[in-house]
Each structure stands twice: as C-alpha cells, then as structure tokens.
C-alpha cells in the first residue's frame, strides 16, 4: 500500500473527494494532513486538493502558500517526492514557485463547471504513463481562476523541457497555449486545473481520472520493486 497525504487547508473543499478517490478507487492508503503539520516524511505522495483555501482572498493560493504543511512540502519536493496539486492546489504550487507561471481569472470572468476535452501532450512515468500522446480524455473542471499565464521565455522553456502534460482541446478559460496541466522541470511535481478525483467512478459517468491516478500507482509500484 502506498500512502497518499492530502493536505487540508482552511477552505479546502475537495479534500474528501481526493481521499475517496485514493481509498476507494485506487485502493491505496489515504490520510488527511492538517495544514499545521510539519512532518511529511511518511507519505509517498502529497496532494494539495481543490477548494478555496483562505477564501481565495487576495489571489487564489496567495495566503495558503505560507501554511507550515505547504512550506514543508517544498522540502519534500526537493527530495523528489511526488506532489500533485489539483485546481486550488495548482494555484498554490505556482504561488509557491514550485511550478512556473500563474493562474489568473478565467477569460469570461466567471466560474466554469463542466466537462472538458483534453489532449495528452506528453506521456511521462509518474503521471501519464497510462495514456498515449494525442489521446483525448474528458475531465471535469470547476474553477474561476484557471487561466494559465506564463511569460514567453517560460513558455519556451516549458515546451523545450516537455513539461506540458495536458492541453484543453478548445479555449475554455483563456489559458495560454491551452495549458491545463504541467510538471516541474524535475518531473515530480504536477499541477493541473481539471479534477481527476471527480472522474474515478462510473456511476458519475466518467472514469478518465483513473488514467492519472493509475499512472501514479504504476510508477510507485515499479519504483518500490
């Protein structure tokens, strides 16, 4: 069993969704990690779930990045641990500087909740090994600030290093180059706006999220051998 730590910040609201996805569909250990926690040693994967940490006040992620658990996550990332930030988690990772760029207000200025089609841009071991390049998957989005921005120089680097994993098939929120998910240069930190944890159960009509979680599990299992 691999242990997934799900960081609970004041205002997180997809923490339990992540918990059930890991426990019930991935069938691995899921544990909540309170935002004041200092020791994150015992987890194989750390997740920052979606929601509105600190109400998204000032900017999404602006205040959450100072939480002890989030600060400690930086050290864990440096050690090479897998980190997954979904939605608000992605916003926090960019505010922290663990991932480049920023997530701005959606182009239409509104919250958008719907399923979107995503194009797989890159297949890489920890996060997308169960997919093929060019494959289309569908995942739900639910955000008001998912409009990814990065400067031309950073974009050039993201493309050169193949750090872009998923792009929106259509322009849903104004993201530059349709970017929906990126990884860090080292490849162990994932940030994505769509919600894979909301797409793990056939009863809800979509299990494409399991591609992501399944890839993570494959990687951990292989590495463990």
């Amino acid at each position, binding site marked *: 069993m691999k242990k997934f730590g799900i960081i609970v910040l*004041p*205002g997180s609201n997809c923490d*339990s969704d992540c918990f059930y*996805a890991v426990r019930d569909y991935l069938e691995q250990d899921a544990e909540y990690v309170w935002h004041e926690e200092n020791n994150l040693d015992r987890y194989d994967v750390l997740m920052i779930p979606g929601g509105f940490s600190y109400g998204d006040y000032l900017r999404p992620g602006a205040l959450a990045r100072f939480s002890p658990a989030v600060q400690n996550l930086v050290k864990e990332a440096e050690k090479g641990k897998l980190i997954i930030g979904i939605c608000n988690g992605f916003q926090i990772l960019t505010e922290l500087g663990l991932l480049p760029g920023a997530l701005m207000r959606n182009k239409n200025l509104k919250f*958008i*909740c719907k399923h979107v089609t995503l194009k797989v841009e890159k297949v890489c071991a920890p996060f997308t090994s169960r997919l093929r390049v060019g494959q289309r998957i569908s995942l739900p989005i639910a955000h*008001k600030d998912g409009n990814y921005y990065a400067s031309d120089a950073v974009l050039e680097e993201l493309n050169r290093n193949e750090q872009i994993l998923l792009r929106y098939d259509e322009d849903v929120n104004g993201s530059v180059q349709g970017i929906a998910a990126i990884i860090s240069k080292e490849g162990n930190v994932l940030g994505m706006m769509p919600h894979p944890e*909301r797409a793990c*159960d056939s*009863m809800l009509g979509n299990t494409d999220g399991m591609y992501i979680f399944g890839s993570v599990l494959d990687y951990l299992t292989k590495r463990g051998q």
Partner: protein
Amino acid sequence: MENQQSPWKILGLTDSEYQEIIKGLGREPNITELGMFSVMWSEHCAYKNSKPLLKLLPSKGPNVMQGPGENAGVLDIGDGLALVMKIESHNHPSAVEPYQGAATGVGGIVRDIFAMGARPVVLLDSLRFGPLNTDRTNYLFEQIVAGISDYGNCIGVPTVGGETYFANCYQRSPLVNALCAGIADISKLQTGKASGIGNPVLIVGATTGRDGIGGASFASQELGENAEEKLPSVQVGDPFLEKLLIEACLEAYETGYVVAVQDMGAAGITSSASEMASHGNVGMELDLDKVPLRAEAMTPFEILISESQERMLLVVEKGKEDIVKQIMKKWGLRAEVMGHITDDQMMRIYQHGHMVAEVPAHLLADGAPQYVREGVPPKNLEQLRVLEIPSLALPEDFNAAFLSVLSAPNVASKSWIYQQFDHTVRTDTVIKPGMDAALVRIKGKKQAVAFTTDCNSIYCFLDPYEGAKDAVVEAARNLSMVGAVPIGITDCLNFGNPEDPVVYWQMKRCVEGIRDACEALNIPVISGNVSLYNETENGPIYPTPVIGCAGLLEDVSLFCTNSFKDEGDIIVLLGEDKGEMGGSEYIQQQYGLVKGVPPKADLAMEGELQDCVRTLIKSNLIKSAHDVSDGGLAVCLAECAMGGQKGFVADIETEERSDVALFSESQSRCILSVEAEALHDVLGMASTFNIPAHVLGSVEGKSVVININGREIINVPLEECMRHYDQGLLWSMNGI
C-alpha cells in the same frame, strides 16, 4: 422632530400589539426591549399573517422526524440516516444589493442545515426576474447568479438544481429562494431547544457589526438628520468563514457536549437566543460585553438585532466549554461564553454590568398575535381567464413558432447559470443540472436522494389554487421521472402585501392547493418559509409558492434520465392532453398574452402516472423518461432529443388545433423511450395503472420531426434546435 409618531409605530408595531406587550410584561418596555419585540414580532420572524394558513399543510408522515418549527425539517431515509431540508427567501436584500443579497441567502440556509447536525450536501436555487435586456434586470440577474456562485462554490456544497423564470411582475422585486439539504446520522441530530440550567451559551464565528440593522423605519427615528448615509448597512457574506464554521460545528457535535444549536439569522442574537430558550422552556442570561464587536459604540439594541452573518449560538454542557472552544480555535474561529441557561424562562440581557432588558422568552419568541384576514379574488380574474383560442390566428411557420418557444428564456437551457455553479464537488452528483431532478448518492449506501424546485407562477396568478397544485404535482413528477419517490416538501411562499385582500386570497388559495395536492400524493411539508410584501408601486408579484421537493431512490443504480439513448427506440407518451393553453409559454410567446385557465391537475391520475413511471424504471423497462411541462409536448420531445443528441419522428393523432396539440401544458403526462422488445411490457404496465399510453414514433435521424394527423408540421435539424435552446438565455440578455 417632525415625526411625532409613537416609537412602537416607527418600529413597525401596531397600537394593539404594543398593548399586548404591556400586558405580557406588566409594564411599559424600555427602548431595547421594544426593539427586540419589533424584530421578533415582525412578519419575517413571527409569521403573523401566515401561521394560521400554514397550519393547513399536512406535516405528518411515516418518514417525518421533524416537521415545521425547528431550523429545518428532518426525514428518516433509512439505514440510520436523516435528510435535513429547508428553503429560504432572500428577496428583499437581493433587490437592494443583488450580489451580497443572494450570497448571504445561501449562507443563511446552509447554517439552518448544519445547525440541525447535518452536513450540507446540496443547494438549489429558485430565481425570478423581470424580462431580460434591461440594464437593471441584466445587472440583477448576473449579480444574483454570481453571488450564489461565489458563496456556494467556496463552501464546497454543490448547487445541483433550481429554476429560473422571467416575468414583468418581478422587474423590481426579484425573488431569490435558496434550498439546502443535508445528511446526518440520526444519532447526531441536534436541536434548537436550550436545556440544562447553568449551561453556558457560546457565540461562535464572525464578529458582530451594524449589518442589516433595523430597516429604514427605525433609521428615521434613531439616526436623525444624516439618515440617508446611515441607512442600515448591507450584510456582507464571508463564505470562507462559513466553510470553517461548518467543519468546526460538525466536529464540535462529535464531542457530544453540544446541547443545543441555532444559527443567527434574521433578528440576530435576539431571535436565536429567545427561540432556543422558549423552545426549551428555560431562560437565559446574556452579557453583551462578551460579544466580539466589529463596530464602535454599539448600543445594546444594535448588538441584539445585528444581522452579521456567519455566527452561531451554542449551548454547551457546563464544564465542557473549553473543549468546544478549542475546536473552534483549531478552525480559526472565535467562540465566547456570553451567558448561561436559567430556570425561570426569562431573557435577561446585561451590558456594562446593568440589566438592559428583561422579557419572558415565550412572549418574545412565540407571543406575537396572529391575524386571520379576509381575502377576496381580484375583480378582473374572470376576464383574465378568458382565452378564445379560435380567435387567435394559427402561426404561418410552425418551425419558427416552435423555435421561439424553445429559445424563450423560461424554456431555454439554464446552462449559462448552472455552469457557474460547482455541481460536481463532493463527487456524489449522479444526475447533474439540466434534467428533471438532480440525483445525489450517499457514499457507501445503496439509497440516493433526488431534489427539485418548481412553481409556475403564471398558473398561480390565473388560478392560485390550481397553480399551487400544479407546482406540487410537477415537483413530485420531476422526482418520479428519475425514479425517486417524493418524500417531503419544503415550500417558500412568496407573495405581495398580505394586508391587501386580493393578496391574502391568493395566499389562502395557494396554501389550500398545496394542501390538497400533498394529501393526494401523500407528501408531507416538513419545513418552509414565507416572504411577503414583495411588491412595488406597480403592484404585487404573481403569487409564487415555490415547492422544493426531496425524493428517495432505494437503489441508486436504478435511476433514469430524460435523454433519448439509441436509434430505433420507441417513443411512448403516457397521459392525456386536455388542450389546456391558459398561461402557457406558447400563448405568451406567440400572442403576447398572459391569459386563460391554467392546467388543472387530476390528482388521482397524477399519482398513478408517477407510480407507473417509477415502477417502469425500477423494472428496467424504459430507457428515458421526461415529463411534459413548460412548452408542452413539442418542447418535451425536443429536450429528450437534444439531451441524447438523437433525432426522432413522432406522429400525433388529434382533433385539436395543431398548435394546441403541440404546446398545451396539460399535467400528468410524460415521454418515455423504450426498446422495441420492451414495448409490449411497457404498454401492459401502463394499462395496469390505468394510464393512457400512445406510441408516438421512434428515435431516428438528426432532426426533430413532428407530424400531426399524418401531415408534417415541424421539421427542424437537431443542431438548429440546440442552437436556440442553448443560446436562448444569452440572446435575451443581449436583446437578440
């Protein structure tokens, strides 16, 4: 001062109400006490004009654990679980400040639910506006939707449904009704009945400011010359704080040390404290110095009636207050002991060491007089109910007439709205917005719950009794279409000024309609809310008794949706058209008329139809089910087609005019799609239930094709239908 009125009148109390207070107290009230009475005896808190009517509603049933009277109603849904549900209006605040008004409306109803010990799991919103494409209406519309969106999304409670209508009467009186439901372990349910002499009373959450104080009438007395600037300040919601409050309260209940809880809604501390004391037959001593304040120099009166949001009042077991405070602190919330329970049923309020008010809890919370008024029907009613169909010219282009109904804002897709609401958070939404009812599962359990809100207020305007009946049967029918059994109703009665005999008559007839429909269909009313005085100088709103209804689906895997599934499936119509065009969307769109006799529901037939459809779903005999409502049969068929992205050809045999056959809104009808092999069984089942069934055609092609008596009347490509249906709302906003 030029205003020489007596203080109680300025505060909105009548002379005789003032005499009642003196009689109850045995003396004249001081200004603080008078203020407390004025808010507690207001229509909003005391239901002075509606209580006698509300008593007519059936509220008993095998599943009912808590009927009207608590913060919310409670239903037993099996397996040790309770469903907690309530609807509430925030009409007046939303008319003044639409964004904050709608947001705080959501916040308020959510607190009612977790005050009962339940975790809030769904929100629905029932909205009414004037016609789009005026600056003011577009502004109200966008801001109200944004307010609901920002608040509901932030607290992580999915908004899974609702309804949205547009009519002239709501131009300056928009309606914002929010419904919240939660799930609780029956053993963890909380009450609002204070008990335990000496137990501490804690105020938890936000600081108290001058939000929403008193209303303009009060301001004119107290504030004198600069009254304009000092009008009651708008309540501002803090959804982040609310999210913390939900988690902290639910965690505090787990300790078992919370004796009673109540949210602070209208009339603030006064209301929650005195209601808790009155319902528990105890008294309370409260020290206002302990209330964390946000504004300077607040008077006792202001502290007592402030409507600052995101606050709760908790009665906790004596000696355990620190444990509860610790939990609040963990979640970053303030909690202060502001008093304790006493044994003499008196509310005693202190500030700076002096007693500033001393009133019997019962008198304050439950002592307001009730008024039974005389109602009279409007003089022009008979004239309004005349609709001579033969005198109306048939449309030249039926395709165009059909598309104009499909794109009418009352019919068109509401996706522009619900895409702004997070409806997938919590990963339990099995049927999302856009269908007849939303379906929400409960993780780890077999059963699921379904929700809808409904009210066609034009019907209610033309016939309050039949219109209210229609609202109940439509709500129940929407639940039945997904397979769920309707188990409880929460209603929001939105009306004009009850002192107007016509409005009172509308109220009374609506309540009677709800009563009769509920009794026939066996659905108890477990909670509700009344919002009166929704009117401007142009008159009252249409009577709008919004029905929120919950349903129970025993096995979540056996649900049904409204969209056609496969080419070749047979389309079956259950029920009979009675050619009822009064108040229909078509008559409004095509002829600009709000007239006629609205559809009259046959309650016995309705019950059978719904039972029949639920049985068909349970037996896995049908692939889709969708009831006929706004826009009639043509719109119903088109919605099935658009949902499944499948065309169809249907043949209607009728003796009616073509437009009547297409657009009549007769109740107790629905469209099913069925695999050819199952047709025999489906028709057999219908006849067992005594429900007329007609095979209309089949799912095929890429167009909506409707023939009447063998002649093609409508033929529109599916894409064209979808463009009208999907864009209709936006087109209206942009005046297209």
